């Protein structure tokens, strides 16, 4: 009984495989035919700007901390309004594994992954992207978000309590209502 089952299963698998002569191949012939990538595909990393056209990055270093392969390097600097920005921002794409942790860690939607993976280079050094290579002119996936307009941080031209959806700061040392 067992032997009969073994033998029939051999012939059945032969027949099943033979039927695949007429099924269409799943292969996408890449350079000729571009595969459809979704907006949240994890490819080349960019730095975005807020709707006012100012760069979003506040140089908080959370992305560099979250990065499992340590491919992000940046240095904090401060402008005359007290606004933080990265003095340099460097991503070594020969190390990057496109995991997207930096995007998840970013509190300002600044660092974002894009549906683009065609970034081959003949020289390894060209895989290191500087800030001017990373920074784009648009807002990326989040069009209306502006960190300094909604956050409670005071910078030049906007004091505490002046952000959107924000009340006046409460003096917790006072008994008056």
């Amino acid at each position, binding site marked *: 009984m067992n032997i009969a089952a073994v033998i029939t299963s051999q012939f059945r698998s*032969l027949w099943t*495989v033979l039927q695949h002569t007429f099924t*269409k191949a799943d*292969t996408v*012939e890449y350079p000729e035919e571009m595969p459809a990538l979704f907006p949240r595909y994890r490819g080349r990393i960019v730095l975005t700007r807020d709707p006012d056209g100012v760069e979003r990055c506040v140089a908080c270093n959370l992305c560099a901390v979250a990065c499992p392969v340590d491919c992000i390097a940046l240095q904090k600097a401060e402008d005359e309004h007290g606004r933080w920005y990265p003095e340099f921002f460097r991503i070594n794409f020969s190390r990057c594994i496109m995991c997207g942790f930096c995007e998840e860690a970013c509190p300002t939607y600044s660092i974002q992954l894009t549906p683009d993976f065609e970034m081959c280079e003949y020289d390894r050094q060209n895989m290191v992207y500087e800030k001017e290579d990373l920074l784009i002119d648009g807002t990326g996936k989040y069009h209306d978000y502006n960190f300094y307009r909604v956050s409670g941080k005071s910078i030049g031209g906007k004091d505490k309590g002046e952000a959107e959806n924000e009340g006046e700061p409460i003096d917790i040392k006072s008994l008056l209502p």
Partner: protein
Amino acid sequence: MNESIGSPLQIAGILIGVILTAAWLIWVERRMIGIWQDRLGPNRVGPLGLGQVIADMIKIFFKDDWIPPFADKAVFVIAPVIIMVTMLTAFVVVPFAPGIGIIDFNFGLLYFLALSSLAVYSAVLAGYASNNKYALLGALRAAAQTVSYEVFMGLSLMGVVMLSGSFNLREIVEAQRDGWFCISQFFGLLVFLIAAVAESHRSPLDLPEAEQELIAGFHTEYSGMKFGMFFVGEYLGVTLSSAMIVTLFFGGWLGPVLPPLVWFCLKTTIGILFFVLLRAALPRPRYDQLMMFGWKVMLPIALVNLVATGGVALWLES
């Protein structure tokens, strides 16, 4: 009547045709397995990827022809030559069509069996000369497998010999005018097919070179054109096995309308594709399963088939 029937031109044509077929089988196999696994296979070099073989050949010719310092040099070099030589000389007796062939031996079938078993020397010597554990294990397996499967490979063909009354391959083909032997000798065909797969070390019975267990088995240490000769030798074996199955069981060149040579090539092509399908579909058995299957299943079937065929032949005669 051991007469030579091929003119020098014919001999050259057959030799070149057979080698080219074997070489292009690399492409055929990769392409067909691709199709059966819902892939495309090699399709970049030339139309349909047909130039893939040429690219592979150029690559393999320019590779470093390296002999390991610990190997037995003379034996190491001669081993891949043996499989090419035995497989090519075995083609001498293949009856392509009436008047097309190289030699018409009275003992053609025995000649084929002798040369196909000589091919095992290639695997054994390669494994021995490589001086490598995996190669030696592969060679041991090749020896054991060939010894076991050789026995009933010959026995399975004796039914055909009884029915046709000849060892001459051309007479065997002619004897199938009123019915191919694949019907009357169905079990003979089954046993011979499995033995032929085992003899040519083809998946699913490729235990001597099982990649997952033995790296590459007996040709682990080979590279460059020496490896290429093993490779082409294997495909020559597949072509030879298909040609013999067609000759012995599927009426050789016999067939309506089309010329005999076309019929022969067509049937052989289908045989080769079946070999490829076997590789695409079936998993490899364990080593002890292979031995058990050979001695406890295939040998009894071959013997019973032999006795039954003999009985029926005698009964029909009386």
